[in-house]
């Protein structure tokens, strides 16, 4: 029941925020904060359960099961395991960040903005909780619509193009997934005579290799478009660049993780053999994404576009880790998801803060900002270092575990991927150099970070440092879930 409440709080809170704009234009953002606080408090429950049973239990928590469309065996089935819990925690944390970064940036139609923001988070939480494939698809689509509005109404100059591209990419690929879901259910129906969209019913059905391969491909494409991996990544730089800061934070921090979550939760457990055969291709795609996107990031002049490409690069690590088939690499992928969510959101917030002050995203028009904005610059340096994988910060742990796990599987590919350890500092330091050092542009007096921005970015600093210094706590939460998906592979 608590899982249903988790979704409803966000959704109803969104409607309330929309309506509250009638009383006062400032009300929606406060309401959004309150809703997120309630959501965060609710999350204490599953953590305390985990605490009591000494480490997170390997069973599912808070199973919620209600009939929905009995004709096709569709149920409203929610449940949570360690992986979902971690990702929902990330969602709530970054929800605060998105609200914070929209605090002064969004001036018109605030009610509708915060409605979309919260509805998008509700859809994402739903995706992380759904254990009925129909329900999963439902939430999967539901999180796209508000994001479309966020980009197309409050985005920057070429927002329409970016929003439509984003929507069509994700929608067409998800129709492939719907087709795969329906076909899978029909195969199950032919085998057993009953319709069921339930995850556990579909886990162990006998598939012939051909069918399994095509169905796996349907899911795989949908998730890699969302992840994204080369060659399906082209929507991402546009969408991230044009979205308002709050939208970029949600997109990069949370929404990309739904792709990785889908791969972990559905592709591998549902089609172990097919996915195993496909692993070399998927790992190659991952490695290519890592290197190609890092090189592309280096070539950008638009700050947000640069950060967007680093996202693609980091997501490549996740793809590599997931298809490496061992606990080490899987755990690395989970840490990378969380760490990248934190570091990319922070960088997008900084880019948004710069744009709010300078009204540009072009790095050529920046330069020499450090003396003007010392606090902002220092924090940028920290997150740039996090993003390039400095030991002691979160990303390092994730990438290290992924590389270590993948090395035992595919030595050559992993060695090539390691080259990114050179490319990442190049783009990260290049960005620092162009923006904050060098000759100073004529800037009028700029305001440095205010208290709100300090508070939110400070929180992210703590989070990434904690993840980097003491990842074991997180690893313990996700271990049972990862362990069970490893066992499924065998």
């Amino acid at each position, binding site marked *: 029941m608590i899982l249903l409440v988790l979704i409803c709080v966000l959704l109803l809170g969104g409607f309330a925020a929309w309506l509250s704009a009638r009383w006062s234009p400032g009300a929606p953002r406060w309401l959004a904060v309150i809703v997120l606080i309630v959501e965060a408090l609710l999350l204490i429950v599953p953590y305390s359960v985990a605490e009591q049973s000494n480490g997170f239990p390997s069973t599912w928590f808070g199973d919620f099961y209600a009939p929905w469309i009995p004709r096709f065996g569709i149920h409203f089935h929610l449940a949570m395991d360690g992986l979902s819990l971690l990702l929902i925690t990330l969602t709530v944390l970054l929800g605060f960040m998105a609200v914070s970064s929209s605090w002064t940036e969004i001036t018109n139609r605030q009610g509708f903005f915060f409605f979309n923001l919260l509805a998008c988070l509700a859809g994402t939480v739903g995706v992380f909780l759904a254990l009925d494939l129909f329900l999963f698809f439902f939430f999967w689509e539901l999180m796209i619509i508000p994001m479309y509005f966020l980009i197309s109404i409050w985005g920057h100059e070429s927002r329409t193009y970016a929003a*439509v591209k984003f929507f069509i990419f994700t929608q067409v690929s998800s129709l492939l997934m719907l087709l795969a879901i329906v076909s899978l259910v029909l195969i199950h129906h032919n085998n057993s005579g009953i319709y069921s969209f339930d995850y556990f019913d579909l886990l162990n059905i006998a598939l012939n290799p051909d069918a399994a391969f095509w169905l796996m491909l349907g899911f795989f494409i949908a998730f890699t478009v969302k992840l994204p991996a080369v060659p399906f990544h082209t929507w991402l730089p546009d969408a991230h660049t044009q979205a308002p800061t709050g939208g970029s934070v949600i997109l990069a921090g949370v929404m990309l993780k739904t792709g990785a979550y889908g791969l972990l939760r559905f592709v591998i457990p549902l089609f172990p053999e097919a996915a195993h055969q496909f692993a070399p291709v998927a790992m190659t795609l991952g490695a290519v994404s890592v290197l190609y996107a890092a090189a592309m990031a280096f070539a950008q002049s638009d700050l947000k576009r640069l950060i967007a490409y680093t996202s693609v690069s980091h997501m490549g690590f996740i793809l590599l880790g997931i298809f490496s088939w061992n606990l080490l690499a899987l755990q690395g992928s989970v840490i990378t998801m969380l760490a990248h969510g934190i570091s990319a959101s922070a960088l997008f917030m900084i880019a948004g803060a710069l744009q709010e002050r300078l009204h540009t995203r072009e790095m050529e028009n920046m330069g020499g900002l450090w003396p003007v904005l010392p606090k902002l610059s220092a924090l940028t340096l920290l997150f740039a270092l996090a993003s390039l994988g400095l030991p002691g910060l979160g990303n390092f742990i994730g990438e290290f575990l992924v590389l270590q796990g993948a090395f035992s599987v595919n030595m050559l590919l992993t060695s090539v991927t390691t080259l990114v350890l050179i490319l990442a500092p190049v783009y990260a330091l290049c960005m620092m150099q162009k923006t904050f050092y060098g000759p100073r542009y004529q800037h009028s007096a700029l305001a440095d970070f205010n208290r709100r921005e300090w508070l939110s970015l400070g929180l992210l600093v703590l989070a990434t440092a904690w993840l980097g210094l003491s990842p074991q706590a997180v690893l313990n939460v996700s271990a049972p879930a990862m362990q069970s998906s490893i066992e499924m592979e065998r």
Partner: protein
Amino acid sequence: MNINQLFALAPIITLAGTAIAIMLGIAIRRNFVSSCAIAAIGIVISLAALGLVWRQIPVQATVLMLMDAYALFYMALLLSAGLAVLGLCYDYFKAREGENEELPLLLLTALLGASVLVCSSHFASFFVGLEILSISLFVLIGYPLNQARPLEAAIKYLVLSGVSSAFLLMGMALIYAQCGELSFSGIGGYMTSRQDMNAMVLSGILLIVAGLGFKLSLVPFHLWTPDVYEGAPAPITAFIATVSKGAVFALLLRFFISTYSYDYAPLLNVFGVIAGLSILGGNLLALLQNNVKRLLAYSSIAHMGYLLVAFVAGGSISSVLVVESVSFYLLAYFITTIGAFGVVSVLSTPETEADDLSFYRGLFWRRPWLAAIFTLMLISLAGIPLTAGFIGKFYIFTSAAEGRLWGLLVAVIVGSGLGLYYYLRIIVVMSTNVEATGIKPAQDWISNAILAVLTMLLVWLGVYPSLLVNVIQSVS
């Protein structure tokens, strides 16, 4: 004919009686409001009669008509759609100068034709129903007599409809020449008694398909659609897009199932090609439109293509699932299409149709509720969750995957991708920032109420379709 059979025909008799009552009313005193009121009461009584007949189905009322659950379901659907269109028409025409009183009368006769069509089990009632429907539509399309566009549209529809009727009659003649039967069951008996395919019957069915293809505006019989949609008054366009097409499709499905035409495999190939062409052609042509009514016209061509995919799947899957899929999809399509054209109609006046895309600029901020309703309708047309359109598309996917029509499924996916582009274009235009301008305030409370009901239905069926699914299952 015994008393039971007469009673089973009560809904149809009520419609005909109401039409006569309106005619007499007009002869006594011209009054638009009372004409509309009589028509609305007639439709409601007819709906109530449907409920009474429901208890004793199936009844074969004469050789011409079969009143079974299928026919009653579609009649209820058509009558409800007719009622909604009547409400939209009232608001649209109430301020118009001139004689509007015949409009409800014509709507009723069109509904009468459509109702006869869905319960017909014989070529005679089939043809009579279709002609009553078509002849009423000619006049309805050209009702604003003093304008060029509607007249042009009416003439176009008249000519093409005449041609399609000729095809239809030729097809019927060929089938009759071969089997010596005019009733569907008789033809079905002939079909099952023969093992081999008969060229005469095959070409007869093909001609019938061509004739019905005109009414359903399937590619390559679609050329009239955008012009007629654009020219006709907005509520009438909604009527053509839903009642006329829905009734014809329901008949086509009934004809195929009860005559066992599904056994003719080449026919299914023809339908498959038509479906693919309609999906791709409709969506591609819609990309280029700047006129909302033409855009919706092309999108309706594509939607008939989607529907046909489920129909084609009937060759290899149980007819229960086909009827279920088609019925749900049609119902979702009815709600969405009436809703979308309803928004156009609320914004239009008889003098100026709100059909140019620029008319919708910034609608979100000028008339937020109307824009929100339009957005939901478009999202439903695009088949995105939370709306009935998604469940409809899910049904299409299910029956096509069950029938292993992978090629057509790819066409559906490509078509949906293309469709998103132009649906989103309208939404983008509606959400652009403009300063609020002095637009006449909404006083069309009947239309607004209808739109509100349709929106609630749309979301309800999208979120919790179980109840309707159960009803439809009992029908099929």
